[in-house]
């Protein structure tokens, strides 16, 4: 074993001699420099391994004296871990900075070594004063490195940094002096043993000053302008060390002094952390400069870690207990790796503006790394931050800290806003510049990319002893595999996905029971079916398959989840996968963002709900416990309900949907609309099944949901009739249809649920059909505006038939399957007695006729445009699934009993009323009856007879050309003018007046405005002036003090 003291010896020795070596040539100096960094990393790494195997911690004392008479350096497990992180970061950052070191004066390398050594010292020292020394070394080294860049911004930033650091050090020193006076020792551990914070006001004040000095180093809001300026101005390689390395060391310092703090001070620290987290993320909303944005994010993350740690310790968890390590450690590692990676990327991109980062698209690996880091920061699976946040929320909930959870989730949501906006810009903005990435820059980024991926996997195993997420392991491995084979052409990958998907479906479906079977068929069998159109794409379709599969893995995971963690992880995987699918559309950047924000918002609300569930149900994560909640059931259900309604795009939460569905690629829209939307339905089904048995208290959730569903049907369908864009029309129609599903569920009766499931199944069939058919048309005619099409029946007859079948099934006109839904709705409404809601639902259904006709008329009928005279039928890969779907619709229409019979039996477990009785093909309810088979036969029979009669009379009918119409004996003008397609239902809009106004969109826009303008207002405190920043720090300290003693 190499003693840890050699870390310092190597750093100091080499640092001292480096300029001498430089005389022998830069190559020699650099070899020795990197050798030194590597050796330091090696020493701490070796200790880490050693200590992990259970060895004793090493304590080094000066000159053999024991504390309190000597300085002691400790190398325990945590110290080894932190120094290892810092030293590897140092080595990697050194590599990153290689070109710079090569060309600059030797001082850069020397200072860099000093900085890393200082950080090691901060971690290892156990002595108050010695800590001060290392603080100073770090500070001076940092400032000098910052100032080595010879530009004004950098120098001024360095100056502000030194002033702020100086103030913090001064306070630290004062506190140390007083504490030494009170305890007679400088050793932190001994001090903690003897010190009684409450013994006098003076002691309290001293500890307060100590804490605040450390916290100021951790950049609390609002006393952090100096740090932000530094993050923005300093070279990327260096700032990565400051943001990740220095923060790591300072967090560890906070960890070390935390035994001195009593509960009051811990609460203060937690409060500061939370304020920092929330406000940093709020202010970042307005930020356009990438590095400053990362600065805000860094500061926010550190705030979150402080809050988590302080509150957990305050709640009585041991400082090094597993829970504390899992949560704060997970958050920390996540931040450490992601932030360093992102800062390094900023050096590769060398662009200030967020949208200019789109140059990353030139390098798929770096783009992947960027996406991974951003997603990890937001806290999505499968990265460490996700699991840490989950554990944090659960633990906080366990302690009843709901207020804190709420604010943490709010802050996380704000963070998600700007990070996903950035990701969207990177993925979609115009490519303007080339990307010149040096291998020395890429290498460290890749190492951290790998580390964060492994870290996620490792942490997922720690939570709940690693067994609970096993359902997702194999599928996630398949996703990883798909990433590796992403260079293959579409045909191979598509075939592979279809084969594996079919096999997976075959495996999963038999494991399901009850209503899950129905959804399993929609999610998985439907999913496989909707991969078929994928063959029409040529080339590689980079990134499509892993992410599409991720969505399906999430969906399947929902069905087989048994506990809340599995459910939530699956939910987030599904969301993440679908986000990347949506954003593939040409113009979908803002819509994908809006989708993601609603989804993440919903997911956080769900997380909150699961947290409360965990609290009230005696730390049970079982999903089955939803059904027997002792208290707070109403709140839990409401929270979970909101989350599910977000995915179902119920009115008020629907504004993301039209853009997301409408702008997605041709084969993605059907996946989203037909399949993904049912995820929300599944959640609600689960919830409603639980509500069935639970004590709800005073909240009548189903009643509220019933009204919500009814209004959703009406508004969704109404807005659909005003769309000019065919895909948006279908998207709004989905809103309406999901409203039916919601309404049916809310009825809480056997008949209602049967209605709901019938609608879900039907919606899956006809909406997949319609989106595929329209997708094929749009693919051919290159426009989505219906008024620009027309007369396409002559060119695309098969697509026409699909749309025809689709709209008949949608509108509910007999003999097709949509009628089953309508019939059940009437029965369910009469049975329940919700007449008014029922009337609104049915009126909404009537309005659907309008857009159904418009869709088929404006696209396929009317006048063919000149530019479409050469258009061909949609690609065969689009038509194959359409034929299958039409077959399914016909089967369902003719023999509804074959499907609704078993569905009724599935529901009997939950709602055993058995309201619909099947006698062969006749369906009876207490109100009426209906026979799908006979209706089909009678309608078909009459149709054939009438047709034959017409044909007999009219067999010689002569087909005429396009413009041969009765037009006042004139030639009609251009098809554009003769085709009545634009603003087709203007009269309806006029008649309904204010009902057709987009109030919801206005509401959300106003909300966004409020957030953005308050962010814009508050961030004016950062004037860029050093004196103001000092004032901030002083005021901050005073205010925090008064808040602490006042409360």
């Amino acid at each position, binding site marked *: 074993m190499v003693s840890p003291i050699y870390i310092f010896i190597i750093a100091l020795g080499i640092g001292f001699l480096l300029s001498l070596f430089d005389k022998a040539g830069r190559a020699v100096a650099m070899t020795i420099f990197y050798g030194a960094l590597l050796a330091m990393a090696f020493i701490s790494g070796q200790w880490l391994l050693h200590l992990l195997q259970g060895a004793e911690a090493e304590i080094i004392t000066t000159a053999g004296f024991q504390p309190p008479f000597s300085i002691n350096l400790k190398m325990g497990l945590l110290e080894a871990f932190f120094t290892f992180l810092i030293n590897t970061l140092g080595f990697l950052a050194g590599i990153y900075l290689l070109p710079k070191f090569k060309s600059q004066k030797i001082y850069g390398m020397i200072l860099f070594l000093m900085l890393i050594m200082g950080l090691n010292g901060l971690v290892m020292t156990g002595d108050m004063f010695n800590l001060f020394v290392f603080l100073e070394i770090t500070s001076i080294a940092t400032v000098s490195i910052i100032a080595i860049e010879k530009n004004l911004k950098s120098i001024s930033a360095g100056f502000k940094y030194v002033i702020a650091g100086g103030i913090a050090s001064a306070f630290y020193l004062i506190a140390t002096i007083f504490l030494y006076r009170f305890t007679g020792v400088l050793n932190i551990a001994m001090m903690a043993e003897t010190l009684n914070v409450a013994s006098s006001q003076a002691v309290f004040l001293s500890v307060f000053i100590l804490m605040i000095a450390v916290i100021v180093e951790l950049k609390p809001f609002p006393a952090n302008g100096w740090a932000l300026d530094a993050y923005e101005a300093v070279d990327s390689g260096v700032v990565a060390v400051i943001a990740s390395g220095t923060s790591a060391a300072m967090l560890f310092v906070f960890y070390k002094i935390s035994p001195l703090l009593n509960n009051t001070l811990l609460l203060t620290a937690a409060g500061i952390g939370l304020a920092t987290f929330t406000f940093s993320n709020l202010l970042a909303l307005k930020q356009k400069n990438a590095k400053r944005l990362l600065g805000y994010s860094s500061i926010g993350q550190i705030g979150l870690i402080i809050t988590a740690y302080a509150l957990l310790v305050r709640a009585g968890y041991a400082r090094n207990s597993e829970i504390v390590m899992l949560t704060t450690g997970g958050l920390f590692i996540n931040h450490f790796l992601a932030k360093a990676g992102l800062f390094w990327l900023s050096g590769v991109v060398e662009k200030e503006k967020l949208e200019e980062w789109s140059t990353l698209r030139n390098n798929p690996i770096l783009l992947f790394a960027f996406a991974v880091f951003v997603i990890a920061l937001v806290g999505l699976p499968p990265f460490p931050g996700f699991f840490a946040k989950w554990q944090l929320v659960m633990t906080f909930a366990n302690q009843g800290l709901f207020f804190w959870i709420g604010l943490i989730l709010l802050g996380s949501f704000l963070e998600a806003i700007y990070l996903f906006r950035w990701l969207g810009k990177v993925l979609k903005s115009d490519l303007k510049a080339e990307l010149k990435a040096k291998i020395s820059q890429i290498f460290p980024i890749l190492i951290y990319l790998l580390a964060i991926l492994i870290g996620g996997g490792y942490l997922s195993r720690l939570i709940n002893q690693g067994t609970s997420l096993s359902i997702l392991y194999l599928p996630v491995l398949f996703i990883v595999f798909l990433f590796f084979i992403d260079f293959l052409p579409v045909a191979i990958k598509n075939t592979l996905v279809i084969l594996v998907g079919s096999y997976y479906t075959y495996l999963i479906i038999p494991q399901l029971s009850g209503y899950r079977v129905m959804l399993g068929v929609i999610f998985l069998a439907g999913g496989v079916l909707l991969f078929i159109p994928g063959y029409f794409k040529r080339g590689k379709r980079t990134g499509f398959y892993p992410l599409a599969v991720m969505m399906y893995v999430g969906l399947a995971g929902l069905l087989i989840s048994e506990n809340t963690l599995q459910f939530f992880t699956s939910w987030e995987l599904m969301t993440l996968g679908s986000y990347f699918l949506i954003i593939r559309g040409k113009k979908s950047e803002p819509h994908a963002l809006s989708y993601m924000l609603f989804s993440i918002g919903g997911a956080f609300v769900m997380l909150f709900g699961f947290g409360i569930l965990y609290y009230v149900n005696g730390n049970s994560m079982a999903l089955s416990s939803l059904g027997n909640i002792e208290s707070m059931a109403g709140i839990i259900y409401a929270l979970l309900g909101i989350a599910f309604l977000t995915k179902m795009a119920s009115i008020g939460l629907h504004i993301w949907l039209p853009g997301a569905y409408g702008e997605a690629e041709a084969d993605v829209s059907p996946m989203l609309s037909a399949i993904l939307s049912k995820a929300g339905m599944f959640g609600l089904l689960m919830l409603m099944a639980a509500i069935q048995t639970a004590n709800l208290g005073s909240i009548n959730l189903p009643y509220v949901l019933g009204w919500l569903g009814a209004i959703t049907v009406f508004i969704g369908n109404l807005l659909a009739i005003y769309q000019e864009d065919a895909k948006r029309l279908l998207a709004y129609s989905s809103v309406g249809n999901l409203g039916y599903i919601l309404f049916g569920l809310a009825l809480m009766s056997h008949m209602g649920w049967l209605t709901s499931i019938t609608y879900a199944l039907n919606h899956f069939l006809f909406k997949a059909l319609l989106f595929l058919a329209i997708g094929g048309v749009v693919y051919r005619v290159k426009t989505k505006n219906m008024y620009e099409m027309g007369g396409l029946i002559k060119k695309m007859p098969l697509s026409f038939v699909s749309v025809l079948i689709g709209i008949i099934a949608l509108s509910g006109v007999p003999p097709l399957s949509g009628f089953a839904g309508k019939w059940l709705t009437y029965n369910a409404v009469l049975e329940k007695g919700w007449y008014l809601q029922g009337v609104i639902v049915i009126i909404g259904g009537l*309005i659907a006729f*309008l857009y159904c006709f418009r869709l088929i*008329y404006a696209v396929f009928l009317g006048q063919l445009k000149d530019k479409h005279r050469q258009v061909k039928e949609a690609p065969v890969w689009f038509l194959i699934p359409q034929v299958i779907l039409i077959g399914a619709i016909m089967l369902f229409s003719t023999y509804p009993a074959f499907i609704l019979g078993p569905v009724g039996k599935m529901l009997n477990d939950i709602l055993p009323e058995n309201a619909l009785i099947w006698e062969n093909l*006749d369906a009876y309810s207490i*109100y009426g009856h*209906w026979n799908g088979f006979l209706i089909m036969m009678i309608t078909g029979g009459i149709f054939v007879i009438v047709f034959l009669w017409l044909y007999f009379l009219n067999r010689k009918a002569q087909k005429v050309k396009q413009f041969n*119409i009765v037009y006042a004996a004139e030639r009609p003008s251009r098809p554009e003018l003769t085709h*009545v397609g634009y603003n087709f239902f203007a009269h309806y809009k006029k008649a309904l007046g204010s009902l057709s106004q987009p109030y919801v969109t206005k509401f959300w826009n106003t909300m966004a405005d409020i957030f953005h303008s308050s962010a814009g207002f508050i961030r004016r405190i950062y004037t860029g002036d050093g004196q103001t920043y000092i004032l901030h720090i002083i005021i901050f300290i005073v205010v925090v003090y008064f808040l602490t003693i006042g409360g």
Partner: protein
Amino acid sequence: MGFEPIKILYALGTIFIIFNVGMLIQGIVRKIGARVGKRYGIRFYQPYIDLIKNYVMRSNVTHGVMFYLGPVFRLTGGLGVFLFIPIIYGSQYFSNFAFAGDVVLVLYFIFFGSLGMALGAGEGGHPYSAIGVSRGLAQVTAAEIALVIAVIGVGIQYDTLSITEMVAAQQGGIANWTMVTNPLLTILAMLAFLGAMGRSPFDVVLAPQEIPIGPPTEYHSTFLGIMQTNRSIFPMAKTILFVNLFFGGATNWIVLILKIFIVYMWSVVVGVVFPRFRVDHSIRWWYKYALPLGIIAIIVTTLIAG
């Protein structure tokens, strides 16, 4: 109840009867209308002559498959609606194919013909057809609000959706008719009837002065003949539905024809008195007056049904 082949024969019989009733009522109504307007008017059998003329016309032009099928959809819709309604209460010969479904089926099958026709007209490519369809659909869906509420109301009152049972509940004299037991609902239904009949003030769809005749602009000869056939069956079917739901149905043909005539005349009388609504006015009218009235009617019905 179930399907037996012989029922097809009975159904053909009822169709034959109602077709002739429809033709004659058309002729008579036009005659009455002319006399009210101090004109001599057509002969009462003129619709038969027009129909035959259309069927034997030689000029036959089609704009495509959907155009060709439009009238087929239209007549199938009309016949279907008719056949799904039990015609004579208590008669096994004239209850048609009502065993296939209840009033909800009829309510939604009404759209079958309209949609098909609209599609055919759409392929015709005439701008006036499209305008007519746009107006027609918008107005029909608005007018259906009243119809749907009325039907739900009847459903609530008699606790059934089966038309036969609704008629059964009204047997035993005029005092048992929905018209008497629930006048508010009947008023609403009669407004809905105006919307369903497409006469003035809700005749902007065909609007001969503005858009020659709207949707059927391109249709002629045999196509028009089929549609004319439908025009003598479909309105009768709808009228029978109202008779069944609100006026006690009928136990024999004479009573039925009498009731059909009286109910039908309601739309004729209103039509001569009131001028045409513009389409946005008419939509707004349904939302502004019929919907609130419907809601009140539903509440009242709930109280009645108790």
